[in-house]
């Protein structure tokens, strides 16, 4: 595979074992690129399990009443689907995989600041994941609280909540350490001559994300610890029977979990911001606006958590306050969308799979974002709170946004990561099927949500049958698309034609080095350009 470079010193990171051999050369690896791949393989595994659970729900919803499982089972299935997808797939997703791989390369560094800590983060990620899986099989039965663990149900149900929350706690710790590593790396390891405003925008997005991971995750950590203490020692915090306040749990939970949505979205926006200039061969429009809007989203995003609680009995003052802030946080997101689209204007656009995925992202993100405003406004929120509308909105943002950005990223960077190219035609077919399947799956949920279909119900009145049927069919189409996509990618990574160093004519630093990169990324000192998107 190392036939790409004429440099005799060049050793691909994939061929360089270090001190260990075989599988240990991966588990014990401190190379950020190997750790990124470890994260990718584990996250893809959990993603596939999550998809299977999702399909089980779609099968259940095919007909009213019991179709393939009982109500209790359905509760456990959507809980596990949520825990897996949120804590083990989308929160670590982009930053741990592509952030780990490309952050050091983007800033001209050899590795992250603390390579061993980075390895440790992956280890505890695995430990947390195993705990989450264990919570399903231990004797008290799988947790049935939903991924939100709302008190007082979570403090009283007999199911295995302690294990599941402890798992989320450990996974949170992994996320904190990754964020910590990235912040220090960006501050300390930028190549000489690279100032903050010379960085590409993906590191900018990761920087903002890392701050959220660092500062918001401890809040969920302590909340989950309190919940565990409440269950284990009957200490009163959230359960009214013990003197506690269940609403306080919701506050604390969302103080983390709303910023966590930006942990998922900001790196996704960063990926799109990388892809669009490359495939338009054009300088990104409004570099500083995009960079600063990442920080603005992170900052304001900390203060809007209450919009998940409009119907919970919060004070009216708090409701309008949170509503106001929610509308403010939409502004920097809209700035990004505007700048992506403006970058395309008069660009020489090269329609390749990564760019098409980026377009799909923008389309789905706009739908997700604008329906978010509907939910951010108190008056309309009260009508659709806890309905399928919320489910649809959430999936348009998280799957349509973060998920499609992940797919875009993998199509964009796979040639760099493996030094091989995939089949464009197959990738495009996968994309079209994914796009159709996705919209069929989730768009009907908007409609029946407005008509009053609650979320998390395993049963529904007959009038929702047609929409549920369309939605389930969409689910199967989406799965077909995913299978085609994964097959194409795996085949490309294993047996594809060798990829050149710069297949897309990109201008950021990862395209200046061989594919796959060498162990230390830069065998020669990288040339730092003042403008990372210099297309002339």
């Amino acid at each position: 595979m190392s036939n790409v470079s004429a440099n005799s010193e060049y050793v691909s990171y994939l061929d360089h074992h270090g001190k260990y051999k075989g599988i240990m050369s991966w588990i014990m690896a401190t190379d950020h690129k190997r750790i990124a791949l470890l994260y990718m393989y584990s996250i893809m595994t959990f993603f596939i399990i999550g998809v299977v659970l999702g399909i089980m729900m779609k099968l259940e919803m095919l007909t009213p009443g019991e179709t393939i499982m009982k109500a209790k089972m359905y509760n456990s299935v959507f809980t596990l689907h949520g825990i897996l997808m949120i804590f083990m797939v989308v929160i670590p997703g982009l930053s741990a995989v592509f952030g780990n791989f490309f952050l050091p390369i983007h800033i001209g560094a050899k590795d992250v600041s603390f390579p061993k800590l980075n390895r440790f983060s992956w280890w505890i990620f695995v430990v947390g994941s195993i705990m989450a899986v264990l919570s399903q099989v231990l004797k008290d039965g799988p947790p049935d609280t939903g991924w939100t663990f709302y008190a007082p149900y979570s403090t009283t149900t007999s199911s295995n909540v302690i294990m599941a929350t402890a798992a989320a706690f450990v996974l949170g710790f992994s996320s904190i350490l990754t964020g910590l590593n990235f912040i220090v790396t960006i501050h300390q390891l930028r190549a000489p001559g690279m100032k903050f405003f010379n960085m590409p925008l993906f590191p900018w997005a990761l920087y903002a994300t890392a701050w959220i991971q660092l500062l918001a995750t401890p809040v969920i950590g302590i909340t989950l610890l309190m919940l565990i203490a409440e269950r284990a020692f009957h200490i009163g915090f959230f359960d009214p029977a013990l003197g506690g306040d269940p609403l306080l749990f919701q506050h604390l939970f969302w103080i983390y979990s709303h910023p966590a949505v930006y942990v998922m979205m900001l790196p996704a926006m960063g990926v799109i911001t990388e892809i669009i200039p490359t495939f338009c061969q054009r300088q990104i429009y409004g570099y500083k606006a995009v960079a600063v809007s990442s920080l603005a989203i992170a900052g304001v995003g900390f203060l809007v958590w209450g919009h998940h609680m409009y119907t919970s009995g919060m004070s009216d003052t708090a409701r309008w306050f949170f509503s106001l802030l929610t509308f403010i946080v939409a502004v920097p997101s809209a700035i990004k969308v505007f700048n992506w689209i403006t970058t395309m204007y008069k660009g020489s656009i090269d329609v390749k799979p990564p760019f098409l995925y980026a377009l799909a992202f923008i389309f789905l993100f706009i739908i997700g974002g604008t329906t978010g405003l509907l939910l951010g406004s108190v008056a309309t929120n009260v009508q659709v709170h806890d309905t399928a509308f919320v489910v649809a909105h959430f999936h348009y943002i998280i799957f349509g946004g973060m998920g499609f950005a992940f797919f875009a990223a993998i199509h964009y960077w796979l040639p760099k990561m493996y030094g091989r190219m995939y089949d464009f035609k197959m990738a495009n077919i996968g994309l079209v099927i994914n796009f159709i399947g996705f919209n069929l799956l989730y768009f009907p949920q908007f409609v029946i949500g407005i008509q009053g279909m609650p979320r998390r119900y395993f049963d529904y009145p007959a009038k929702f049958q047609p929409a549920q049927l369309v939605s389930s069919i969409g689910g199967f189409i989406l799965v077909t698309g995913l299978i085609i996509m994964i097959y194409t990618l795996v085949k490309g990574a294993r047996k594809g034609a060798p990829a050149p160093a710069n297949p897309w004519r990109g201008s950021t630093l990862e395209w200046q080095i061989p594919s796959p990169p060498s162990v230390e990324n830069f065998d020669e000192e990288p040339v730092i350009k003042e403008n990372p998107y210099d297309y002339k």
Partner: protein
Amino acid sequence: MANNTTHTIEYQSLSKTLLILLFLTFVTITIASVHLGAFTLAVALLIACVKSFIVLSNFMHLKYESLLLRILVGMVFVLFALIVAITFIDYAFR
């Protein structure tokens, strides 16, 4: 390859800091027994804030650290204050 540039603080300066902190602790305890009504909590918190500022700047060397780090530390406290204040918008107006 020594690249640690942490400022050295003299013993004397550290013991002076301790004396100030002990004095402030004494003040907190004394004030708690005096009836100040609603101000008691405010005064207690104010003194605690002053004490933590002294610990941060002297014991933790923050006084001699880069401006960036000092801003970051300040930012964390501001963020926490904002989160508390916003939560109280709910509880105070219910």
